[in-house]
């Protein structure tokens, strides 16, 4: 039996033992709570993933589309000129990164929806995701050619095999995506029982427009590969032409817009329109596009017949040189000897003082408002980050009929589509400038082109329909309309074997500077971290001069 003094002695022993035991007993009690991440949730809803996908599409459109790649794609496509090569290297990693971040999210969404007991209610959502996946995959493939696709984005399986992804041929990517697009076109439904995203960033759940968008993309991509794989592409073109296509010049402009995305930024992380249209871009109006806007080189602009000239570009600001102030002076697209230019035409100070920073600027610039559109606080009516336009769709239809691609050649239908395309383009761009709240100087007075303005273009010898020259005309006008989508214009240029407009002066100069640029190199993590597959795809020669499969 324990005695009193013993009890006291043992008190300390027991206390210490209890203390140790308490630590042991509670040793893992709060661990999971303590280690749970506070910076973000451990799961995501369909809506959250969908919005996240939209964010990455926006980043790709903004940073990759407007910034670094635009510095190169404008002179490559001759949609504009630069007076010295960009300091930014000819690389494009943003679209790659954003796509491969989206791909597993898209796949996870599709899996979740398919596995849901009420999967039938997710048909529209499934179709939207498939359309976006196809759009993003093919546009990315047009930068790089072959790339990881069918086995990509599967790291969350936990299998180490999925960390190193084999490359798919560009053709396989196209066919897979075209099949997804067909599924979407055939399954979009207006049934009231469908799940819908409460924030649908692209088209605000307008299923009719989604269907048109998906079908128009089919036309774009099937025509893109038609010359390489007409047996697959032909039936798709034929089918697409029987289904709804984008048609309204304004309402059917598909892209990331202020209308559907309140608070959208067009200058994410200091990159985007505002960043591109700065001194570093050295961007000027090139002679190639000028030649399609003006009948002559009169610097007073008396030869301009296309209203888009005033929207895309502005006059120079030279006060001392021999070219005169306020003149239309295109920068030679491919100067024989390099010519520099001065002034600071894209300086934000021009909001307050229109002229000072133009001093010393010899050549016509991109319209100042392209840098400011959507980037001034509270601005409305900004040009969206365009995915696809009604005008482009019209030109694709015109091309199909003019070429007899998938359908019988039919110049009449081609001409109708061509005229519709030009009209649509003129309407869109004029409306865009009219609606943009930042546009002040040289703002159009109405949002729709007058018939005189339309006729001025449609009847001009450089534009007027001509069966003998149909494809050139179609490609030229499509190319102009792709003014804010230089990457799509680049694809058009490559798939048509450079049938898009090009300046006739000094083609050798163009060839030397830009002719070798056929694709982007894969991001360096591919050669470093996915080397075996990268080797298999490139043979160790990941060259920017290698033509991708779609290129002629």
């Amino acid at each position, binding site marked *: 039996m324990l005695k009193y*003094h013993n009890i*006291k002695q043992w*008190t300390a*022993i027991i206390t*210490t033992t209890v*203390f*140790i035991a308490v*630590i*042991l007993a509670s*040793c*893992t009690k*709060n*661990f*999971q709570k*303590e*280690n*749970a*991440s*506070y*910076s*973000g*949730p*451990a*799961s*995501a809803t369909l809506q*959250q*993933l969908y*919005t*996240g996908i939209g964010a990455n599409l926006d980043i790709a459109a903004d940073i990759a589309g407007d910034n670094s790649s635009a510095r190169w794609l404008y002179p490559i496509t001759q949609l504009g000129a630069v007076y010295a090569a960009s*300091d930014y*290297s000819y690389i494009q990693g943003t679209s790659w*990164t954003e796509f491969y*971040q989206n791909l*597993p*999210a898209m796949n*996870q969404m599709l899996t979740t929806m398919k596995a849901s007991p009420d999967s039938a209610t997710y048909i529209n959502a499934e179709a939207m995701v498939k359309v976006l996946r196809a759009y993003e995959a093919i546009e990315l493939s047009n930068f790089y050619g072959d790339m990881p696709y069918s086995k*990509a984005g*599967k*790291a*969350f399986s*936990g299998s180490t095999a*999925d*960390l*190193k*992804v084999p490359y798919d041929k560009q053709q396989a990517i196209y066919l897979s995506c075209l099949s997804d697009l067909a599924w979407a076109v055939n399954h979009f439904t207006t049934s009231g029982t469908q799940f819908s995203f409460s*924030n649908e*960033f692209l088209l605000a759940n307008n299923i009719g427009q989604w269907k048109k968008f998906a079908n128009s993309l089919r036309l774009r991509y099937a025509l893109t590969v038609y010359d390489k794989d007409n047996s697959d592409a032909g039936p798709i073109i034929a089918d697409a032409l029987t289904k709804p296509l984008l048609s309204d010049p304004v309402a059917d402009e598909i892209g990331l817009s202020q209308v559907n*995305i*309140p*608070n*959208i930024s067009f200058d994410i992380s200091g990159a985007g329109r505002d960043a591109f249209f700065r001194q570093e871009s050295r961007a000027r109006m090139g002679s190639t596009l000028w030649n399609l806007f003006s009948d002559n080189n009169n610097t007073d602009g008396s030869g301009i017949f296309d209203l888009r000239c005033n929207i895309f570009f502005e006059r120079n600001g030279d006060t001392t040189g021999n070219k005169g102030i306020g003149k239309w002076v295109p920068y030679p697209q491919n100067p024989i*000897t390099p*010519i520099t230019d001065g002034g600071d035409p894209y300086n934000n100070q021009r909001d307050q003082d229109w002229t000072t920073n133009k001093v010393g600027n010899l050549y016509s610039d991109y319209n100042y408002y392209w840098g400011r559109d959507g980037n001034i*606080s*509270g601005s409305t009516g900004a040009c969206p980050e365009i995915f696809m336009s009604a005008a482009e769709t019209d030109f694709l239809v015109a091309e199909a009929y003019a070429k007899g691609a998938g359908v019988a050649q039919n110049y009449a239908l081609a001409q109708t589509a061509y005229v519709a395309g030009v009209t649509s383009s003129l309407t869109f761009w004029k409306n865009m400038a009219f609606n943009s709240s930042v546009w002040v100087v040289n703002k159009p007075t109405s949002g729709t082109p007058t018939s005189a303005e339309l006729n001025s273009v449609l009847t001009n010898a450089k534009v007027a329909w001509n069966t003998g020259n149909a494809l050139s005309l179609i490609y030229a006008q499509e190319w102009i309309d792709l003014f804010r989508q230089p990457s799509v214009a680049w694809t058009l240029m490559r798939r048509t074997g450079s049938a898009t407009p090009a300046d006739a002066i000094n083609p050798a100069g163009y060839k030397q500077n830009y002719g070798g640029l056929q694709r982007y190199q894969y*991001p*360096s993590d*591919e050669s470093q*971290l*996915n080397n075996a597959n990268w080797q298999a795809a490139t043979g160790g020669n990941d060259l920017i001069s290698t033509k991708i499969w779609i290129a002629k």
Partner: protein
Amino acid sequence: MEFSTLYEPRNEYRRFSKILLVMKLTTIILITACLHLSAASFSQSITISEKNVSLESVFKKIEKQSGYTFWYKIDLLKKAPKISLAVKDATLDETLNLCLKDLPLTYAIVQSTIVIKPKAGSNIAEVMELPVPIKITGKVVDDQGQPLMGASVKVKGTTAGTVTDINGAFNIDVPENGILLVSYIGFKSQEVTVSGNKPLTIILVASGGLNEVVVTALGIKRETRSLGYAAQTISGADMDKVNPPDIAVGLMGKIAGLNITQPNGVEGASTRIVVRGNNNLFGNNQALVVVDNVIIDNEPVQPKGAVQSFADALNKGNTDVSQPPVDNGSFLNSMNPDDIESIDVLKGPTAAALYGARGANGVILIVTKKGTKKKGFGVDYNYSLRINDPYRFIQTQHEYGNGMTEDLYSANPSFYQNGNGQNREEQIEGDPYGSTGNIPGAYISPGVTSAAGGPFYNYIGFPGDGASWGPKMSGQPLVWWDGTTRPYSPNSNIFQSFYKKGNTQTQNISVSGGGDLGTLRVSYTRSTNDAITYNSNNSTNTFNIGSSINVSPKVKIDATASYINLNKFNPPNIYGESGSSGNIGVGYMTVYNIPADYKPIERGLTTLPDGSRNPILNQAPWGYGQQYYWWNTYNDNTTLTQNQLIGSISLNAEITPWLRAVGNVGLDYYTNQYVTQDYPTDAAGLLGSYGYDLATKTTNNLDGRLVFHKDKLLKDFNASFSLGARHYYTNMYDIASNNPGPFNYPFVFNLTNYNGATPTVLNPTENRYVQEINSVYGLLNLSYKNYLFLDISGTNDWSSTLRPTNWSYFYPSASLSFVFTDAINMSAVKDWFSYGKLRISEAESANAYLPYQNGLTYGPNNTPGFTTGLNLPGTFPTNIQPQRSRSFEIGSDLGFFNDRLNVNFTYYDTYSDNQILTAPVSASSGVNSVLINSGALRNRGIELTVAGKVIKTSNFSWDITVNAAHNQNKIVALEPGINSLQLGSWFGSDGVTMKVDVGDNYGSIYGYGYKYAPNGQKIVNSVYADGYNTGNGPVLGSQYATSDNIVKLGDATPILTGGISQNFRYKNFSLYVLTDFKIGGQIWSGDYATIMGQGLAPETVYERDGNGLPYTYPDGTKANVGVILPGVIAVPGSSPVQYVQNTSVVNSWWKYAGNYQSWDNDPIVRANSIFNDSWGKLRELSITYSLPKEFVQQTKVLQTLSFSLIGRDLFYLFTTLPDKINPESTVGTGNVQGIQFGGLPGVRSYGFSVKAGF
């Protein structure tokens, strides 16, 4: 499986208060229990129920219950038969009478001692008559006369014994002519024969360096002889001898194998402390700091609660060390050196096994002062003043001023002209990139050139504005940017105007005393530092209380508390290109943007009379923000206020003679508050900004253990076994918000005073960091005859940062110490070989991971318009296991000539595998990285310490200690399929990177090297008007071709590090000298690359001064400024490529600008700026005069007084870097230690200190 369902989301945050409660309760319970224990000791109510037991064991029970001590001859009891006894609540007399009932023995009680003696008349009376004990009082002191508390005093041949009190005093009953055995840990035991009863003073002599006491893991004091691993102790006084700015700096060069670096040597900057090399591929490789049992967070203090090692571990080697953040220092910067009693460095996992995870990198154990009894008032006062003098500046040329390619068109370069046609100073922002910023080639007429050849930055990247390729300076009148005409002339030291002499002052007052209850020391220290840069200073107030309390003879409590209040005003920004607020880095700016003709005029033009920023600064050159350097220096103010409380209570209770309970409670609590006020730049007071950032961090340590110990467990064997548990919990929370302006109300610094367009910018950010580790451990110590010692430990940790299947893990350790000189008869060599010990140990440790990494975290989106979206996690976490380290160590401690010469040697081999790392994977997999266990590192090395008392006489002595260490840190394996991982870079992949490659040393430096032709010659690229090697037209320039891939340029691992300290004493004068050194280890010098490329280095003027080859400028003028880059060129158009000797004479500009500097846009040969970075330094010097005690004490007030002249970092004995580039200016304290950039001037400091005792 969906990972999203694995864990519940965090929903509450009440952990902290709960832990505090547990801590409080535990402390109260332990103290209460022990107080009861001591009260029980004097009870006279005895209860015993025993059968057939020895008399001795019954006496022991009585002793325990009564508090009385028995006194008897052992032999007397040995003859007594066994007895049986049953008493309940009996008195002492009753009990004793029953015990001795049938025996020939009787007793007498003398005070609290029971004397057992034979009964009168018994037959053993004659021989066994015991002398009556006499009471002896005495005192045990050391050879300095300081009392030794806790010394053991025993009577030889009996069980009687006691322990000295706070004054070293004891009293004990001893028979006449009895022998006292006095022992104390760390001192030689002594036997004293008692004669008479006069008070004794027993002086114990320290047992020498080889038997010193070290504090080991968990605060356990051990004699060095018993340790099977290397541990080194340094006293606080030795660390603090020359008033180091902080403890880490005070340890530099003093401990073998301890590598301490302080980037740029700026006072107040954080330090990197690595023991025996890096054990982690990524993340924290620094030693653990423990102060009085409190595990301290020594991470660099960063805004927004950022944790550097956390960031380093997770960012997959993407750290760009060209732009590290402002260094705000770390804990060791604010810990007051004056309060340190001793510092023990436990090297490697063996020593630190008990600290588990974080101890794997070695442990710095700091023990603070607890006070001693002193003569006089017990007050000590120290004052020291050091002047910090920036004296060693990078050398530059003084002949050619500002200019870039515009000066390469003619032998008679012209100046730029302003609007009035006057020559102006060049390098107005944009000059190099403007109309004449092209490589000369298609010269048209002066001032008019074409772009042929292309912009130079396509070949060499972007130079800084310090580019000094301009015309020769000969006093030509030039209009400066402020409109004033000044001569174009050299500046003898272009960097000097940015620095000034700083100073550091420390005042410390402490009161220390002791009594029967214990000791107490209270101190206050104020330390101030005025930096060597302008408008930057800091001050620290430290209040420290340390005490050791004897609650009862068997219960002792050590308690310490420090309150540290640190105020840092504008910590210098060394590197940043531009701070988010505040300034551009001064090191970066000076080395990169200041040309040879620099005139320091901005400072005087900074502010208008109305207080606003002078708009004329807009016209100043240097477009990276330097034009506002002085405005920012004086108007953008950041104040970091740190309030820290560190408290520790350590309780030690002797429950029974064989059981001790030990409890430690430690708390480290601090708040870091950053207030940033950027004074408005406009007169109206609206264009300012304001930021507030508050971090709160709590770290709790609880440790409790039971120690079962038994001397003479078996014959000659002593044993102790400890069983304990430990709890470590750390919790950081930070909230920060910034008002970027414009303000609504002028000059009001308030977060809500915002009048801008985006109110969301005011949204605060939050950061957290929570981690918990619980452990149980067992520790067995066995010793045989005090010369063979075996320690075995086992620990099991539970860490909150792993998944449940892996969060429990075990690791053992074992060590053996063998003092062979005591075991083997070595009398033959005893004259010179006095002490020898072998030690051997093997240990394992395991390291869990960082918080928040084991599950999936979906990424919230910041993209405007999509802010409700989520992205999939960028990292896929596998179910990681803890990282493991195994360490083997063998060594010897040898003493010669009666310990006049001591040699300690250690060889170690540490293998760290199962590394946890965030391995990058290609983005096409859907993630950027996976968290995996992969890879292994091995550290092998030797450490040597030799300490000698060269001369030792009463008037003169000379001691010398040399320590040296070599460590080899190899990468054994990485993730399968990956042979290389990046640690960090300087300007990305075209710059210089540090990588770990399988088979390489940790810390290899990579960059582009030369490309070689088949014959081994360097290949030169010829620059033509239309590009490289086209063969079209004349050769405009030459540049070395770069290797196809980046190659290894160097290895930052030093071959040998160490220090030599010497103490000379002559009477009351002493001289102390410490030199330390680093031999080997390469560095890539960004400073050298920059000044060479910019034409600032003295080396670059050789050809410009006419010593080059004849060269014709584009305008036809000629000068001897040409060079031919030695090497071969490819014959244009040849296939297969043919190489011929390069014979093109080009402007010498190409040799320097073309081959040294480049930012991240052009690959360039980086091999030119690699150096072997060896140096030796006079680190510490002091001359001290201690006034004679007799003299001082005549004042009746003073007890001691000494004066010292002190000097720190006085000069380099040797360095291998050229142009006086700072050899200790490695960038930051992270794992990238082979890159130098933005070095500050070398700073020496000198001053004096006074120490007075009252």
